[in-house]
Structures are given as structure tokens and as C-alpha cells.
């Protein structure tokens, strides 16, 4: 019998200890991968080998030579790097630019990282070798072109191509891994290889798959040996037994099919580490673990080998490990993606293919773990549908009220539909999991490069606005905008194409390919289009600002004629010398306030972007699709952009994802959701991000929790796509007091009724702030 879902266990002492170790650890750079990789590629004999073999052998060497550590209290073992929390350098990918930052990592303001003197020296030594050999350099022919691209990416104003760091962002076929083991993959590759001539492209690919998967077995065996050695020295019998179990497990997996829950988790984690070491562009996501692992849980419970508490302890020990990985990004790239996000998604719940609900006991256990851990990673997500059990929703909202913003919520009533419209089969679409930040993909079948690039749509709008001194109609401005977009896409797509091709030619990913259906059967690497689904995702950044700006032009210049076009242009150029005009523009309705006219303008911008982009095919033979999330590029692009017709001044951050611009949603959450439901989300299969901020007090009480739940319910019933609920803490109220414009919507409870924080006098605000601290 499976125990009841209402049971809430305390956080185990082990989970507490492991979490503490993570919270206490410094963020560091690990030189091991870079040093081993460089050493491999400097070797003249290796340089002669086919590229698939090179990558497989280099990664195999990393797995065999990197330091391994088993930390106290661990049940699931394996270390991404030599540091408790660390990240590797991939000199062949982000190479030169990141190495240039070597002296800045420790002191930089945003996301500082520790690097030891010795490792810095080791890394510096690798630099000369990679100067002209890293991917961004190899992708383009001719020195001029190389430099143009490099410069454009270093100070990017129009788009940021993440694929220069490799192509990833997928959910590996961990179901296959736990059910068949590496053994299964090796057998398949061996058999298929015999059909091809030795030295042929496909033969080489299969060879690389064999090399790297054999190394995976050895990787497990190293930990088995390490665990045994530790067990011998261990004083406590309890820990000794744990270590002996770990040793046995690491002998069995990832080689063989997993026999139980712990083996399944261990097997997954080994591959998780190795895939992350293969390529930089992370977002490697275990995905729907409650679905993949439930059979092991059930078996364990039935056989008596497992109980709920033990299962939770294992899953918790597993989840903690994801926080040990950070991406090492240069200062510049950190502006695009600050926060050290490695995008490893674990997702719970959702509909089954037949429309029934799929939540199980593991969904609930994982939700409890989200609440107990509250760490940056893994990125926990929950799928919701119209008939999701009330108990499941209740649990989700109590987890959310603890204030970590996890889980992010995904709507099964729209996402499968959006995926199907872009070529996914109904069954596959129904099995989606988000990866990275918010991008729906199909586990084990998509190599969707969801985070391929982020595109600053405002840069194109500006081109259109400044292209003429006047427009005879608003429509003619719109058609100029569309033409400019098409023009820009042409050069953008050709850059993308070059980079995707370079990935295939210079950085294939045989290990990743081993866990994506279609690659092994076709003998084609995932970077070459071997996967079943091969989309590339491009994010439209700045859609709300563009919509607000177009609407302001329409109103002020064309409808009401209160400002002339030339006046507008000169105000934009002078960053609003005339504050009166700016105020007038600011007063025109903005996206997020339930005003149909302006809401439709935002949809127009994003929809036009999606429509035009959708016409292009990528290097791997898949479609380009649009996403509406921005990482932190909305802040970066905003910083480098001049004044906009919306009344936004120079340098101010754009709106994040699909959220209204900061401070613009003055009419409260219901109005905001009404606006957001004017977006047709089927046009954005690459995922959207809506960040909604709530005051902690609103969400913690029973009344607030139910209201928030109802908001999401309505939003999702009307086919909203995704929402992330942020609970603000008291400190934020203090900030809100100092900078009220950025926090217009903090709803506070005064006495039997609610009021907006900004509408209160300082006196009452202070009272609320002090009250909240208790």
C-alpha cells in the first residue's frame, strides 16, 4: 500500500546537513576539465582523429582523471567539479572571452567566483592554444567576419547567441537509462556500427558513442572504489553500511538497468554530470522524475525495501546535488544571464496521454523537498491541468507561500497544443517537460536548442522609428517595422546557421546523442539533426515595451495628434528634454492593465516576431520557434537602449519575459491576468515567463492562498501558459518605500481590508514594516 499524501514528514537530519553544506560552500571555478581538455587537444596524434572521436576521448579522459569526492552524509554521489559548488571552463566553447576574465572573477560585483592562484595559472597556460581555436572563431570564415561576430557578441545590441557555448537544453532519455542501462546503449551502437564501413562518418559516430559510454561505466566504478575505501576507514557502522551500499550501487550503475530507487537516482546523476561536462550550454534536465521513478518507488514499497521516509531522504539527497553546479560566465555574459542559473529542471504532475491525471506519491514528496531545500537548483516546476487534484494544488500553493518562488507553474491545457502546432505528435507533446528556464520540450526526443538566442526586438523597432522623418499612417510605420524585422532576421539567421554548423563540425556531442531518440538509430549526432525534434528557440525580448511604444505613437501622434512625429523623434533623441511630453506619453495605457488596445499591440509585436521567425529552418532541419522569456537580457538590452515612445527613459530595464514593464501594471493582478490572456500562447511554443510578485502576507494566510490559487486557475483555464509566483519579503517593503514606482502593486492587509502599500502614508507604511518583521 502506498501511504497517504497528506502525511508531511519532517525534513530529515541528512537533508538538513546536506543543505547546510551547500549553503556554506563558496562558489568556485574548477580548472580540471579545461586542463585535461587542452592537454588532449594539444596532442598532435589526437589532432588527426575524427572530431566525434576527439570529443568522446577528451570527455572520457575528463571522466577518468578528474578528481572524485564523496561528501559526508551523501547517498547519491558524484561531483560535477573539484569544488563543492563549482563550474568548469570549456575553453573550446566560450574559450577566449571567459579566460580573459580570469583576473576579474573574484572581485566582480555580480556573481563573484573564487579561483585559486594555482588554478588561475593552469588556466592561463591553456589560453594561447585556444585563442584562434574556440568555436566562435571557427564558425566564421575570414578574419573580418570572425572579428565582426566576436565584437557583436561581446557588446551585443541586437541579439545574443548562446549556441556559441554549445547546444544543449534538453531532457535526456533517463527513462531509457534506468530501464536498460549504458549496456543497452552500447549494444545498440555496436550492432548498428557493423552496418557501416570503418572510418565512415556514421561508423565514427558509433565509435564515439561506444568510447564515451564505456568511460561512463568506468566513471561509476571509480566511485565504487572510493566508497569502499571510505567505508574501511569509517567509524560509524551506520555510515559504513551506507558507503558499502553506495559501492555496490556504483558497480551496478550506470552500466546496468537500475534495480531500485537509489540505483535509478545514482545512474541518472552520473549521466547528469557527464553531459554537463560535454558541453557548456547547460539546461540539462531530468524532467518528469515523478513519472520516471514511480515504478521503483512502488516496487520498493511493495517489497518492504523502502518506505516513504527513506524514499524522500534519497530524493532529497539527490536534489541537493544539483545545486553543486554553476555555469562560469564572463562578466559580459553574466549581464545576459546573471544569477548563476544552470537550468536543471525537475518537473512534477501533469496529464497522462489519455487525459487522466498523472500525479503520484513522488510528486508530493518532490513538492515537500522543494519547500525544505529552497535552493537555487534544481529548477523545480509543476504541471497543472483543469482536473488536477485539489490536494495537489493545495500542496503547491503551500510550498509557494514559503517564499522561494518554487515551483513555477505550467499549463497542460495549452502547452501540448502549442507543441503540436509545431510538429510534435500528440503523445509526445503530452509528455512535455520544461527545461532550462521555462522551455517545454519532449524528454529523450527533443534536441530543441531552446535557449539558442535572445533577440532584442526593440533594436528593430528603433530602426523602424528612426528610418523616416515622418510616416503618413500608423500602418505604414508597422509595415516598416515588419520589413526591418525580416531584414534583421536574414543576417541573424545566417549567424545562427554558422554557429549551429560549427557545433556539428567542431563540437559534436556523442554522449548527449546517446540519450536522444533518433540519434543512435540514424547514426547522426544531435548537433547534426539526429534527434526526432530539432527546433531552435529564439526569445523575443522587449515585446511589452515595443507594444507600449507603438500604442503610444498610435495614440499621441496618429489618433489624438497631440504630438507631432518629428517632435516625438527629437524628444526621444534628447531623452525627453521636455518632461511634459514624457508625462503625456506615460499616461497612455500600458500593457498589463486590461486595456484591449495596448494589450493587442504587445501581441502584435510578439506575434509578428513569431510568424516571421517560424518561416526559417535551422541547420538541423527543424523550425525556429519563439519564446517570451528574457533571462536578464531585458535589463542588459534596456541599459544600452535610448528613450522609447512609451515614455521609458534611456537606460531603463525592459519588461522581463511576458510580464508588463516594471511598475506599469497599476490595476492589480486580475487586470494583469486579463491582459495576459490576450496573448495567444500557441504562438510561443518555446516557452514564456510570467513573473508575478506577491506580498508575502497576501500569500501566507488561507484567504490569500486561495485567492492566488484562483488567479492561476482562471489564468490557466483561459489558456495562459506559465506563471511564476514570487513572494516578497518584508525587506522589499522597505525598498518599496524608497522606490515606490518600482513596486506599485504590493497589497497589504491593514485591518479587515486591503490597501496598496503606496497609497499609505509613511507613518502607516512604517507601522506595516515593523509589524511584518515580527
Amino acid at each position, binding site marked *: 500500500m502506498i501511504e497517504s499524501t497528506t502525511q508531511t514528514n519532517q525534513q530529515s537530519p541528512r537533508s538538513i546537513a546536506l543543505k547546510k553544506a551547500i549553503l556554506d560552500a563558496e562558489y568556485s571555478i574548477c580548472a580540471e576539465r579545461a586542463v585535461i581538455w587542452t592537454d588532449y587537444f594539444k596532442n598532435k596524434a589526437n589532432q588527426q582523429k575524427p572530431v566525434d572521436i576527439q570529443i568522446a576521448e577528451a570527455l572520457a579522459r575528463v571522466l577518468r582523471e578528474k578528481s572524485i569526492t564523496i561528501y559526508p552524509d551523501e547517498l547519491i554521489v558524484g561531483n560535477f567539479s573539484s569544488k563543492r559548488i563549482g563550474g568548469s571552463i570549456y575553453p573550446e566553447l566560450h574559450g577566449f572571452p571567459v579566460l580573459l576574465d580570469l583576473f576579474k572573477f573574484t572581485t566582480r560585483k555580480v556573481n563573484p567566483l573564487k579561483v585559486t592562484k594555482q588554478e588561475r595559472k593552469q588556466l592561463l597556460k591553456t589560453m594561447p592554444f585556444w585563442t584562434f581555436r574556440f568555436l566562435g572563431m571557427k564558425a566564421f570564415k575570414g578574419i573580418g567576419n570572425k572579428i565582426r561576430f566576436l565584437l557583436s557578441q561581446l557588446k551585443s545590441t541586437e541579439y545574443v547567441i548562446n549556441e556559441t557555448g554549445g547546444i544543449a537544453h534538453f531532457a535526456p532519455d533517463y527513462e531509457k537509462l534506468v530501464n536498460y542501462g549504458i549496456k543497452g546503449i552500447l549494444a545498440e551502437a555496436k550492432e548498428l556500427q557493423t552496418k557501416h564501413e570503418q572510418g565512415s562518418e556514421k561508423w565514427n559516430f558509433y565509435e564515439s558513442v561506444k568510447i564515451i559510454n564505456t568511460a561512463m561505466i568506468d566513471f561509476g566504478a571509480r566511485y565504487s572504489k572510493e566508497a569502499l575505501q571510505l567505508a574501511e576507514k569509517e567509524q560509524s557502522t551506520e555510515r559504513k553500511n551506507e558507503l558499502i551500499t553506495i559501492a555496490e550501487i556504483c558497480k551496478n550503475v550506470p552500466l546496468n538497468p537500475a534495480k531500485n530507487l537509489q540505483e535509478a537516482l545514482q545512474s541518472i546523476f552520473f549521466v547528469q554530470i557527464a553531459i554537463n561536462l560535454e558541453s557548456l550550454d547547460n539546461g540539462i534536465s531530468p524532467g518528469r522524475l515523478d513519472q520516471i521513478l514511480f515504478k521503483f518507488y512502488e516496487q520498493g514499497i511493495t517489497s518492504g525495501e523502502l518506505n516513504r521516509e527513506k524514499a524522500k531522504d534519497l530524493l532529497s539527497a539527490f536534489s541537493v546535488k544539483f545545486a553543486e553546479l554553476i555555469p562560469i560566465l564572463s562578466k559580459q555574459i553574466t549581464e545576459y544571464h546573471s544569477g548563476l542559473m544552470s537550468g536543471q529542471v525537475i518537473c512534477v504532475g501533469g496529464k497522462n496521454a489519455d487525459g487522466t491525471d498523472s500525479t503520484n506519491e513522488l510528486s508530493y514528496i518532490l513538492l515537500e523537498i522543494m519547500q525544505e531545500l529552497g535552493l537555487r537548483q534544481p529548477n523545480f516546476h509543476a504541471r497543472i491541468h483543469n482536473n488536477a487534484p485539489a490536494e495537489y494544488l493545495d500542496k503547491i500553493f503551500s510550498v509557494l507561500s514559503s517564499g522561494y518562488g518554487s515551483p513555477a507553474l505550467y499549463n497542460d491545457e495549452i502547452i501540448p497544443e502549442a507543441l503540436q502546432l509545431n510538429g510534435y505528435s500528440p503523445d509526445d507533446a503530452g509528455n512535455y517537460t520544461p527545461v532550462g528556464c521555462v522551455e517545454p520540450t519532449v524528454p529523450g526526443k527533443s534536441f530543441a536548442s531552446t535557449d539558442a538566442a535572445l533577440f532584442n526586438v526593440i533594436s528593430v523597432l528603433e530602426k523602424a522609428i528612426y528610418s523616416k522623418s515622418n510616416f503618413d499612417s500608423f500602418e505604414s510605420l508597422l509595415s516598416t517595422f515588419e520589413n526591418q524585422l525580416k531584414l534583421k532576421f536574414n543576417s541573424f539567421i545566417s549567424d545562427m546557421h554558422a554557429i549551429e554548423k560549427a557545433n556539428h563540425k567542431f563540437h559534436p556531442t556523442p554522449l548527449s546523442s546517446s540519450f536522444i531518440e533518433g540519434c543512435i538509430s540514424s547514426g547522426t549526432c544531435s548537433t547534426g539533426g539526429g534527434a526526432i525534434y530539432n527546433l531552435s528557440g529564439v526569445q523575443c525580448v522587449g515585446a511589452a515595451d515595443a507594444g507600449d511604444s507603438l500604442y503610444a505613437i498610435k495614440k499621441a501622434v496618429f489618433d489624438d495628434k497631440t504630438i507631432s512625429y518629428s517632435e516625438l523623434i527629437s524628444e526621444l533623441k534628447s531623452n525627453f528634454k521636455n518632461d511634459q511630453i514624457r508625462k503625456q506619453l506615460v499616461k497612455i495605457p500600458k500593457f498589463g492593465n486590461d486595456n484591449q488596445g495596448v494589450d493587442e499591440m504587445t501581441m502584435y509585436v510578439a506575434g509578428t516576431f513569431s510568424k516571421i521567425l517560424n518561416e526559417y529552418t535551422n541547420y538541423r532541419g527543424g523550425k525556429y520557434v519563439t519564446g517570451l522569456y528574457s533571462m536578464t537580457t531585458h535589463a542588459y538590452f534596456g541599459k544600452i537602449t535610448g528613450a522609447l515612445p512609451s515614455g521609458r527613459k534611456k537606460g531603463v530595464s525592459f519588461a522581463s519575459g511576458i510580464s508588463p514593464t516594471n511598475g506599469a501594471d497599476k490595476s492589480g493582478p486580475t*487586470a494583469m491576468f486579463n491582459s495576459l490572456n490576450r496573448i495567444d500562447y500557441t504562438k510561443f511554443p518555446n516557452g514564456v515567463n510570467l513573473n508575478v510578485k506577491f506580498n508575502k502576507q497576501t500569500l501566507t494566510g488561507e*484567504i490569500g492562498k486561495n485567492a492566488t490559487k*484562483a488567479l492561476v486557475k*482562471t489564468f490557466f483555464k483561459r489558456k495562459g501558459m506559465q506563471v511564476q509566483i514570487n513572494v516578497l519579503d518584508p525587506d522589499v517593503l522597505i525598498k518599496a518605500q524608497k522606490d515606490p514606482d518600482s513596486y506599485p502593486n504590493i497589497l497589504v492587509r491593514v*485591518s479587515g481590508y486591503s490597501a496598496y502599500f503606496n497609497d499609505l502614508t509613511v507613518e502607516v507604511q512604517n507601522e506595516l514594516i515593523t509589524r511584518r518583521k515580527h
Partner: protein
Amino acid sequence: MDRPTPYIFDIQRFSIHDGPGIRTVLFTKSCPLKCKWCQNPESQKSKPEVGFYFENCQDCNKCVEICPTNAIDPITKISNYAACIACGACVDICENDARRMIGQKMSEQEIITELLKDIDFYSDSEGGITFSGGEPFIYPEFLGGILKELKKQKIHINIETCGQFDFEKVANILPFIDLIYFDIKHLDSQIHKEYTVIANETILSNFGKLITVFENIQVRIPLIPNVNDDKEHIKAVCDFLLKKGHKLVHLLPYHSMGNSKAIRIDYKAEIFKVKPHTKEELNKIKSQFSEFGINPITYD
């Protein structure tokens, strides 16, 4: 239609503490009571008035210059209610968002459109629409017209009342109402008058009549330190309620917000200031209600 219509003071969406679920609250201006501790002093008067947000004011004096009736004090920038004709000129000319017009005329259709915007949220949260004030029941014909339309959509309706209204007129619209929040301030008519400017007889008799014909009443008492929180008064309230067959009361602890809002419309506003109850005092008050047979409910 020339039924008397109120000025609308505010329409607040996503209100979650004015009845069940997610609600939109329509605040009408004008109230027969003038409670010294009023939470919404800007809703008391029936005409529109200008609220002054002194923290935004840059002292440019443009408002003072433009005012056709010289209603604005050149020093304090507060508009004098008696002289102000609510023309809005000062609000329009202020570049610093320091003046806002409190109260606007809206057509019935405009109001209904606004109230229906969140209808999807009402149904998913089992919420609805709340009419507050001011005192909404002083406009029974206006309410009736709107409620009839809203009821076509089966929306849950709550009215917040101070109890001072014409019962015969209100009785006609009760079938459209699902819930009434009925405030009781003090049982002693003299004291009631002292703090709210009117006696309490009509209020208490309205309560008596209402409870016989309307089921879903929530009695609310704003607990004001040293005004209505003594044991003797608590007993009187409990006896009164029990006699009417009512066993539940919602207590609203006093909060000083009303005062700080009052100075936005009248800097000379009499400052009513008492120390809010402590948690312990509130607990004691609650236990006294229980002792006298009434179940007290508090928020927070």
C-alpha cells in the same frame, strides 16, 4: 433615469478581504455617519473633492493660481471643500501627481462594465462584488438598477453598511443581495452621537428588522480603544445580539490609517489618535465576547 446616483470614490479590483473570494469593491461617496476613526474619510462627503498628496508636491503654486474659486490654501495647498467646485483644473495642471480628484460620476453602464471585468475570477474563487462606501444603502434605486444587471450573471453580492438607511427602500433590493456586512459601533446612543455625529436608534432598529428578513448578515464591530472596548459595552453588545438571535461577531481592530488619509483632504482634520490594542488586549476582549455568549472572529 433620474434616480439619485452617487459619485464613485474608487473601484478596487482583486480585493480579498471584503467578502469571500476575489472581489471587486465599488466605493460610493457620501456617508451619514462621520466616525472619528473613519478608515475612508475621503468617502464621507457627497461631492467630489481634491485629495492632496503632499509628498509629491513641488510647491510650484500652479494649482493655487488656476483655481477659479480660490479654494486652495497657498501655504498648505489643501482645497477648501466648501469653496471647491470640483472643476478638476488643479488636478490637471499639477505636474507632480500631487492632486487627485476623489469621486467621479460614472454611468450605470460604465460601472457595470468595470465591475464585470473580473467575472472569470469571481467564479473561480467563489468571489463576487462588494459595495462599500461611504454608505451604499443611501442609494437604493441606483443599487437596485445595477444589482439587477449583475444578478443576471449570478454574481455574489455583498454590501457593507453602517446601518443608517431607509429600511423600506432597501427591503426592495434585498433579493439581489447575498451577504450584508452590518457595522455596529456603540449601543449607547449618546456616545454613538458623540463619535459618529448621529444617534444609533435607526441603526439598531434597522438591524432588528433586517435580521428577520435577511439571513446572511455579518456583524462587524470596529474596536476602538477607550470608546467601545470596555467590558460593560461588550456585554451590552452581546446581549443585544443574542436577543436578536445572532451569535457571531467580526471584530475589526483599530488602526490609525484613517487619520493619515484625513490630512490629504483637510489638514485641519481633527486628529483622532488612540493607541491600537496589543495582542494581549485583543485576546482579552475576545475572551470577554466568548464569556457573554458571542463567538468573536478577528483577522490577522
